[in-house]
Every structure is written in C-alpha cells, then in structure tokens.
C-alpha cells in the first residue's frame, strides 16, 4: 500500500489532496475555527475548539487568501494588529500556525501574545454573527512543534 503524505504537506513531491483533505475553512491556529468540524483534523465539536491551523505558510505576505496572516514577527503596525483577519491575499503578516510564545514585534500590542489577539478577534466575529463557540484547547502550538516549511536539509 502506498503511504500518502499528510494533507498539510502539499509540496512538490506530495500527492494531490483527496477531496476530504481540502480544508473547508482557512484559519491560522487552534481555537479559531468558525464551525464544528472545520478544524484541521475535522473533529472540532463546535466553533472555537479546533486543534490546529488549516493553512501553513512561512512568512509575511505569503498567505494566499484573506484571513491568513499569523502576525508577530514582521509587518506594519496595522498589519500586525489583525492576526487571522487580513482583508486580502498577501496582506497577512507572518507565519501560520501561531506558536504559543509568539508576541507582537510592533503595533499597539507590541510584546503581547499574538494568539490571544487572534482569539479576541475571532470571538468578536462570533459574537457579531450570533454564533456559539467553545473553549480553545490551547493558546497556540507548542514552540518546539516545527512546521514542515522550516525543515532544513544538508547543504549541497
């Protein structure tokens, strides 16, 4: 049996994703899914309880859709204030998913947690939409969880 690569690792050598592997919603970290089952593994019992991001990208301006900026490392003061809530493709600031120790490097929340701001914005969207949401399983991924885009191989 051929082993499939994981759905989040769609690099040049990965198999194309199966329909059920394509995220139905794009968000940048745990606790930010807007509906049940829309988190990365599809097991969240309700909004706000997802365990991980459905989009992974490495840096500033690399989000390929709205709402994909992780924020905290680079970006203008305005960009950094809106983790997970950018208006447009390439507007986002910094890598996704958000690790738990990440803080803003600029802007009004300089030195404060990026994930907490992302969650605040998420909760505001949920309140505005009149939707219930549950507790997040955490406040960002562990710092020692290395996303595939930061893997390094032997220099040639």
């Amino acid at each position, binding site marked *: 049996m051929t082993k499939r*690569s*994981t*759905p*989040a*690792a769609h*690099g040049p*050598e990965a198999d194309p994703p199966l329909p059920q592997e394509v995220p139905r919603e794009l968000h940048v970290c745990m606790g930010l899914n807007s509906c049940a089952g829309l988190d990365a593994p599809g097991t969240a019992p309700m909004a706000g309880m997802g365990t991980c991001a459905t989009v*992974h990208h490495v*840096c*500033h301006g690399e989000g390929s859709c709205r709402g994909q900026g992780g924020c*905290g*490392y*680079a*970006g*203008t*003061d305005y960009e950094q204030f809106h983790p997970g809530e950018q208006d447009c493709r390439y507007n986002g600031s*910094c890598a996704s998913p958000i*690790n*738990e*120790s*990440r*803080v*803003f*490097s*600029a*802007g*009004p929340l*300089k*030195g*404060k*947690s990026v994930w*907490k701001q992302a969650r605040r914005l998420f909760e505001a969207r949920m309140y505005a939409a009149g939707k219930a949401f549950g507790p997040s399983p955490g406040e960002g*991924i*562990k*710092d*020692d*969880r*290395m*996303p*595939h885009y*930061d*893997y*390094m*191989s*032997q*220099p040639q």
Partner: protein
Amino acid sequence: MSTKAPVQEITTLPDLIAHLKAAAQVELSTVPLYLYATYTIKTRGYSQWAAGASAQRTLIGISIEEMLHLSLVRNLLIAVGDTDFRLYDENVIPTYPGPMLKREPELNLRLRKLSTDQVRNTFMQIEQPATPPGAALGAIEPYHSLGEFYARIERGIQTLRPVIDWAKAKKDLWKFQYHRAYWNQNGGSDHPLLIVDEASALQAMQVIVDQGEGAPEDRGLLPDPIVRTDDLPPQEIGKWQASHYMKFSDIAKGLDGIGVVVDDNGKQKYTIDDEEVIWPVLDDPDLRTVTADQPVKDLMEFSNAVYCYVLALLDAIYRTPMEALAPKDRDAFTDSVRYGYERGFVASMQGLLYPVCDLLVRTPLVAGQPSVHAGPPFQYYAFETKNPKGELAALCEKLLGSFPALGGDDGVQRQIALLPDIELP
C-alpha cells in the same frame, strides 16, 4: 617618530578565531547602545502625515541588523571549527561606559537616551566609513573602522584556504549555525547565512561591512540584498538600502524624526532632543552605584537577568544541532528542541526584554522625582543555579507587588512560563 606597529595579517587559524571572537564582542557591544536609545522614545508608530521613516523604526532596524552581524560572525566561528564561544560570559558581555574593543582612536561607548549628540558623536562614529584611500593605514590591531577590521578577517579567510576544513563545515558544523528565525521589517533583506565554504564566508563579511558603514565609495547607498559590483546601481536587483552610517546621519539631521505631526508652519513639533518625547533616563546605569528606590533597583537587576537569559538561550541554540530532514520526508510537524529554542529566543527578546526595559524607562529612579528615570544596565547577572528560567520566574514573582504590569494573563510572568527550560553548562 611613528609608534605604529607593522601591519599584522592573519596567518593562523587560532589568530582568525581570536579575531572572530573580538568581532562578536564588538557586534554585541553595539546592540545595547542602540536598544537603550530606542527604548527612550516615548512615541509609538509614526504619523502618516510626516515624511520619512521614524527614528524609532530606523533604530529598531539597525539593532536587528547588528544582531544579524553577530549571528554571521558566530556562524563563521562555528564553520572554522570553534564551537566553544559563549556570549553568556562575564568576560564577553560589554560594560558601559567602556571603550569600543581595539578601536583607534578610542571610542567610549555609553548607554544614553536618544539625542542628536549620542547619534552624531557615538552611533555615527561606530559606523564610520573606512579610512579614505590615501590616508595612513594603521596597524592591524587596533583598527580605525569596522571595515578595516573585517577586511583583515576577509584576507585571513583567503590566506587560510588550505587550513580551514570547509568540508566539515558543510557536512556537520552547519547544523550548529543560526539560520532561521530572522525578520526585520525595518532593514535590509539579508538573512543569517549558513557558512559552509569560502564564498559564503566572504559574503557574510560583506554584509556586515556594507550594511554598517557602506561599501567603499558607495556613498552610503547599497544594493539590497548586499552584493558588491562595479555596476551601480545593479539593475537586476533594483532595491536599495542605506548604510547604518547614512541612517544615523538622517536621524541626526532630523530627516528621520520622532514621528509627530507638523505645526502650522510645516515644521515638526518635536525633535529627538525634546524632553516631551524622550524619557529622561540616566546615563550608563550601573546597578552597583545607582541611587534608586529598592523596587526600581530590583527591576534593573531583573532586566540584567533577562538580558543574560537571552544570551544564554542563544548559546543553547548554538550548541544544539538542527535536524537534517529531507523535503520528501516532510510531515506537517516534527518535534524539535532546537526549533523550540529559536522560537523562545525571539519571544524572549520581544515579550520579555522589551516589556521590562519599557517599564524601566517609564519609572523614575526615586518616587516623586520625575526628572531622572531608570534604564536597563545591560550588565552581567550571575545565575546562582543551572536553571535560569526558574530564577527569572522567582525574580518576577518578587516584583509583582511593586510592578503589577509584569503579571496578568498576557504579561512578562506568562511569557517566562513559556520560555525553554535551558540548562547552563
């Protein structure tokens, strides 16, 4: 009669390593200077109506590039086989006021608030362009400019071509170098290079010199990323950056200002010399001699401990190898101690060092006497145990009564809890 010693070239590997260690100390000695001045700016952000970049953003960008230079020097140290160098070392951490290492004429480095005097007479002197052609060149040690110092190292790298084991650097030692976790919104696009051969070593030295003082005869305007070419401007690149020297010059001239709106006459209301926009911090804070309320002294000592933790964590990164993972093996995530250190390192600077220093510069040394505020001394702090994180947590806990801003669900105390649990050697 001239007393200058004859020119001394680098001809042995131990000599090259000694020069690189001195270079690391020189680079490290600039960072607290620039950060100290940056922390004293009261304003945040920059008015969309004022022209130019803000002095604050420029200073942050330069500080990060000095950290880049430090990482490039240390990567080269690793590449040529020295893996023992440590920044968290009482003999390596610079003291202020103090002379810039091995520089001639002597330049006294002082921790002072941002001012035209500090920019013009210290910062611009640090980044002073190389001795112009035709001027007398001094002996190798001391040096007159950083460009002269690094040119000596470049020649040493080439001289030692038969001696340096580049194959080992490419096969094994690259894993100990710093490569990821670098961002600079306000600087050039060069990043920490993996140094695995002579070409990458020389490129790293070029980045340090050109970003700092500018390449010879370039008038302070540089291609971005750094590349040396006779074809100026290099059309295939098309991006430009100014050298640190030119950036400081723009701040001193008031071109890069404090970032407030202009008055009715079109003039900026404040300059970097106005007390309305700069915290009145003391010069060269020294924990041993400062007169301050005890909680303020404790906070200053805490900032020393935080600074030293940051350096110790950087040391831990350099002694923990990166994993080599083939791209075709990539799963979504892999657990990595080294990666956790890197993330923690960035977070410790932004979420720990910055908030503590920011709190210090807002706080008068003595309650009721607002004319002189505290500042971070950037001094050596001797951890009593092998567990610096635990000691930081205890120091922070002790300060919460006097400085509640350190606590809360998104404060320094929380950030300490998220730090990597490194063990000092």
